[in-house]
Each structure stands twice: as structure tokens, then as C-alpha cells.
């Protein structure tokens, strides 16, 4: 039985179709990431699954419960950090954890929990004086007070500096090693690549791609490419003298490598051209390339259809 199941989920705000019939499931112990630009429908989706919003259509179950109608029971078994986590100004992290412990009726060791989220140093600082990263870590700590089976993290590192972001990632990795199911929304591709077992790319309320990052890259990516920086007209030489598929812009030439032989042909031709060339790299479409391609295509198709 998956931890989260979503089938044909819809939600609209007046004319705006925020979520448009999406389906996916998340297995227990899996880290699943909803990736998409701002306004793609990620937060609406995750808030419906957390029981904070009512769905417009479709079915959703989290731990075999309907999140809206069984919210009170569900909330005892899930942990949530809403987007842009904010708390009351005056409790310290230690006090906040003790308070949550009483609310959930759980005996918690605040120091242990603070250690887990790497926040021991700020245990006695009022919330309003914590840095952005420390606030986010407190949000993580509070979401763990009830020892949740599923943890929902809505853009947990937005606005954080790289160091704080890495620290939050470390905590998320620990959640996975503890066997918890994690659902993460983000618009940082690197974050999804680093943390998620599977990714769903959302745009305009729809899922446009889903799978592991490798699956998405190989399915939607354009294979390997050789990129060469040159000072002369290398693009023209390659087009006129080889059958390679080339494209270029400014001093950068991109050669599509349809097979391994293309790489040798390309290198030979570059050498023969006599053109002065510099950096040479071989790379394949990253998740970012695929993301931009998919989100762009989706945007275009919508405009065409309109």
C-alpha cells in the first residue's frame, strides 16, 4: 500500500485551474519531489495532501485516509513544514518543541531533536531572532515531534543561503535513512536531484514528466553533446565539411553526438579546420535542460491552443 495516492486530482480558484487532473503515488520510505516553477500548482497539491485545503475533484489518500475529512487523525501521523515557515515570535526552539510535545501528547527530548536538526546552538534564542536557516530547521524539528510516518516539506530551502540549504538537505537525508516517506516541493532542480528518489515535474497544474532523474533525462533529454569554444568560424567549417548535426551561437559550437563514432569524427574535423579552439566539453541534457524544455514546451502548447 503506497503512503500517498493521488488520482485525477483537481483544484480551481475561480477561473484559474491550479491543479488539473494529476495522478501519482508515493511508496513508503520514498523521497518524492514535486518540481516546478512558481505557480505550477505544487503548493496547492501538497496542501490538499496535508489536509489544509479541500480538493476540487479526484481522489487522494495519505496513509489510507482522506486528508480533508480525516485531517485531525491524519495530522497525528504526518509532519509538515508549510512554505515560508513562520512561528510565534517569542518561544525559543526548546520551548517550541516542548509545547508541541504537549500538544501531541508525546514525550520528547528537546535536546535530542535539536541535535537531529543541527540547531543545538540556537536552543534558547527567541524565534524572532533566529536566522532564516535556523527558523527552517526549527520547522523541521517541530514537524518531527510526533514521530511522523510521512513528512511534507513545501519549499523547505527557499530563500536560504547555500550553507543553510546544505544543512537542511542533511536533515532530509536523515529522514530517508530513518525510513520515513518524504514529499518535497521545490523549484530548485539541484535539490530534487540531490534528494529525491523520484521527481514529478509540474507546470500549469499538470504533471509533464515523472520518474527518477535518470529516467526523465534519458526520456526527455537530447543525448550527449560536444560543446567547443572557438575563435574562428568552426560552425561553418563543420557544416560544410562533415555530416555532423551542429548548432552554434557566438563562439560556442554544439555538436550532437548521435553515437560514439560522431565524437571521433568531430575531434578530427576540429583539428583539420585549423580554427583556434579552446574549452571542449561533452555533456548530456541535465534535469535542468529537460525541465526548461518541458516547461517551455508546455507553455508554448498552451499558447498555441489558446
Amino acid at each position, binding site marked *: 500500500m503506497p503512503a500517498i495516492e493521488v488520482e485525477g486530482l483537481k483544484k480551481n480558484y475561480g477561473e484559474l485551474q491550479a491543479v488539473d487532473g494529476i495522478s501519482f503515488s508515493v511508496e513508503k520510505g520514498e523521497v518524492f519531489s514535486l518540481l516546478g516553477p512558481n505557480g505550477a500548482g505544487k503548493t496547492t497539491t501538497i496542501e490538499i495532501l496535508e489536509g*489544509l485545503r479541500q480538493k476540487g475533484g479526484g481522489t487522494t489518500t495519505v496513509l489510507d485516509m482522506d486528508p480533508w475529512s480525516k485531517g485531525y487523525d491524519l*495530522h497525528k501521523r*504526518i509532519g*509538515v513544514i508549510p512554505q515560508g515557515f513562520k*512561528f*510565534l515570535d517569542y518561544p525559543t526552539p526548546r520551548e517550541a518543541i516542548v*509545547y508541541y510535545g*504537549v*500538544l501531541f*501528547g508525546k514525550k520528547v527530548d528537546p535536546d535530542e531533536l535539536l541535535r537531529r536538526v543541527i540547531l543545538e546552538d540556537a536552543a534558547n534564542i527567541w524565534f524572532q531572532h533566529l536566522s532564516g536557516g535556523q527558523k527552517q530547521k526549527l520547522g523541521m524539528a517541530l514537524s518531527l515531534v510526533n514521530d511522523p510516518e510521512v513528512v511534507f516539506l513545501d519549499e523547505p530551502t527557499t530563500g536560504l543561503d547555500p550553507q543553510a540549504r546544505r544543512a537542511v538537505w542533511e536533515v532530509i537525508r536523515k529522514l530517508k535513512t530513518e525510513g520515513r516517506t518524504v514529499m518535497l516541493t521545490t523549484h530548485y532542480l539541484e535539490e530534487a536531484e540531490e534528494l529525491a528518489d523520484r521527481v514529478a515535474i509540474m507546470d500549469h497544474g499538470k504533471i509533464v514528466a515523472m520518474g527518477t532523474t535518470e529516467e526523465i533525462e534519458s526520456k526527455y533529454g537530447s543525448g550527449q553533446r560536444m560543446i567547443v569554444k572557438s575563435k574562428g568560424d568552426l560552425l561553418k567549417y563543420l557544416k560544410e565539411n562533415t555530416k555532423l548535426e551542429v548548432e552554434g551561437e557566438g563562439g560556442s559550437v554544439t555538436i550532437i553526438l548521435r553515437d560514439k563514432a560522431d565524437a571521433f569524427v568531430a575531434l578530427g574535423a576540429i583539428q583539420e579546420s585549423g580554427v583556434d579552439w579552446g574549452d571542449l566539453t561533452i555533456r548530456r541534457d541535465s534535469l535542468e535542460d529537460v525541465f526548461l524544455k518541458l516547461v517551455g514546451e508546455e507553455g508554448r502548447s498552451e499558447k498555441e491552443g489558446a
Partner: protein
Amino acid sequence: MGFSGRRMLAELGVYARGNLRSKEGFFFTLVFPIILILLFGAIFSGGSSGPTTVYIQNLDNGPISSAFMGALNSTTAIKLVPVPTNQNFTQYLSSHSSTDGIVIPQGFSSTYIANQKVNVTAYGNPTSTSSAIVFGITSEIVNAFNLRGASGAHSVGVSMHTAVSSNYKYIDFLVPGLVGFSALTSPMFALVNISSTYRRDKVFKLLSLTPLTKTEWLTSKIIWYIGTTTISFILMSIVGIYAFGAHITFNLGIAMFLIVGPFFFVSLGMLVGTISNSPESAAVVGNLVTFPMMFLSGTFFPVAAMPMYLQGIAHVLPLFYMIDGLTNVMIYGNFGPAYFDVGLLLVISAVTFALAVRFFRWRED
């Protein structure tokens, strides 16, 4: 989803700590009530202008009336100015722009010695605070004279020429008014503000993800404001008594209002904040509800002194019943009408509380 005292107390603890740690919370809980009573007490008592001038006409000139005047003179609160016996007393007062005076009747001494009843006449304006001082002091001296009388009989009386009988000073009415003011403003402004900022910062969403219920949350706020209103009451009473000589009867009846007042205004604040769409409109609606109550419910002066049409409005304002009830129990010890006031407040508080819990949403949609 039952009510949990532990959860409610945990929420109360967090809220209380927050209030005591914030400068604003500390100010409004402990400092503001003192400022309020000092300010309004000073304005309305006129205590700083030195002794009140009181005109006195002694038509008796016997030994007892001389002793009576001596006793009046011994108080530092009034300064006696004798009026010749051949003058019309009220005309004399009027020509000296005064309303405060005492007339000792002819035969005062002989009647007193004969143990027969005799009245001194005190003149005053019921809306003037200085008159309250004149009446108060005259009554005190008369009482002292009665106790010293040969037989202990109450032979000296005071005939007061006003519509309102009173040894009460203006400050006596001001203390219950300002306690009511405190019970209204602190919870109303706080809850209207909380309802909009918690929504903006998604704190309500966060709380909805815990087992804390809306009833527990709102109850904790009521308890906190019962506490702050009680502190306001104690501070205002202390300052009222020691700085302005207020007469306050302490009794359990007061506690009823210190409980039911915050119960109502916390619920009302939450309801107002909840039905408003934005923080801006919540503040506007909050002020629209709060300000008329603040000024028309007998906070700074008795409702009876207002024009009839305003008295009509006052009678539909819940704060009126709180101040009326507090005045009844604190000043008059008059419990019958106070029970009506507290009963009425309880009913509308329960309804408002139920509506607030029903309409205020943790989650959205």
C-alpha cells in the same frame, strides 16, 4: 476531538510568555492600566488644584456649630469661606461662581444638646467632582459628631441639595469604567490583530496540523485576558484608593465581571477578525465595534448623564452591562441588578464564543 486541559494550558503558557516578553504586552498588561487611572483620575478628580473652596453660613453661632466648623476646617481637602448670616446663601454662591456650600441652621447647638434631630444643608452640583468632596467630607464629620453625641443617637443629619445622593467621588465611578475599558480594549485589539497576522503568517495552518482545537485555543486566550483584566482591576483599585481616595467595596461579585467581560470581548475580537477578509478590514471593523462602546458605555462618565438617545444606544452595548454591573457591585453593593447584567453578558458571550469557534478557520477553503 475532546477538550484537553493540558493542551489548553500549553497554549496559554506560550501565549503568556510571549506577552510578557514583548514590550507591548508588558506595557499593556502592567503599565497602561496605571497610566489610565492616573491620567483620568487626575483629569476628573481635580485633586491637584489644592483644597476645594467651600462657602459656609453658620446661622447658629453656638458651641456645637463652632466645633462642627472646627472639624470641617481641620480637613485639608477643603477651605472654608464664611458667608455673612444676612446674605441669601444660594444667591451668594451664584455671585461667587460656586456651587459648593454648607449651611448650619439656627438652633443647631441647642437641638444637638437636647438630643433632637437636626440637619446641616450641603449644596453642590452633582456633575462636579468638588461637590462629591464637599458631600463626602460633610457626611464624615456628621458621622463623627453623631458618634461623639451624648447618647450615641444619630441626631445630626445631612440634607443634600442634589438629585444624586452621594458620598461617592467621581473616581469611584471611574474605576469600574476604566476596568471595563481595559476588559474591552486589550482582548479586542489583540484578537483582531492575531486573527489577521496568524492567518497571514500561516500560524493557524500550523496549529491546525496539531491536535490543539479551536475551542482550546480560544479558551486559553480568555483565561489570559481574565488574568490581565484582574491585574488591571487590582492596579487601578490600588492607584484609585491611594492616589485619589476611591471607595471600592471588594466582593466576589466583582470576580463575575472580571471573568465574563474577557470571555465576551475575546470571543467578539475573534469573531470580528474572522469575518473580515483582510487585516486592513479587520482593523477597521474592529475599531467600528470598539470605539462606540469605549465612549458610550459609561467608561468616563455615568450613562445617566448622557442625552436620552445616547442612553438608548448605550443600552445595546455589551460594555454598558459590564460597567453597570461593576458599578453596582463595587460602589453600591447592589447585587440584584448586577446578577441581571452578568446573566445577560454570559448569554451573549456564549453565543459569540460559539460563533467565533464556528466561523474562525484554521484551514483554508
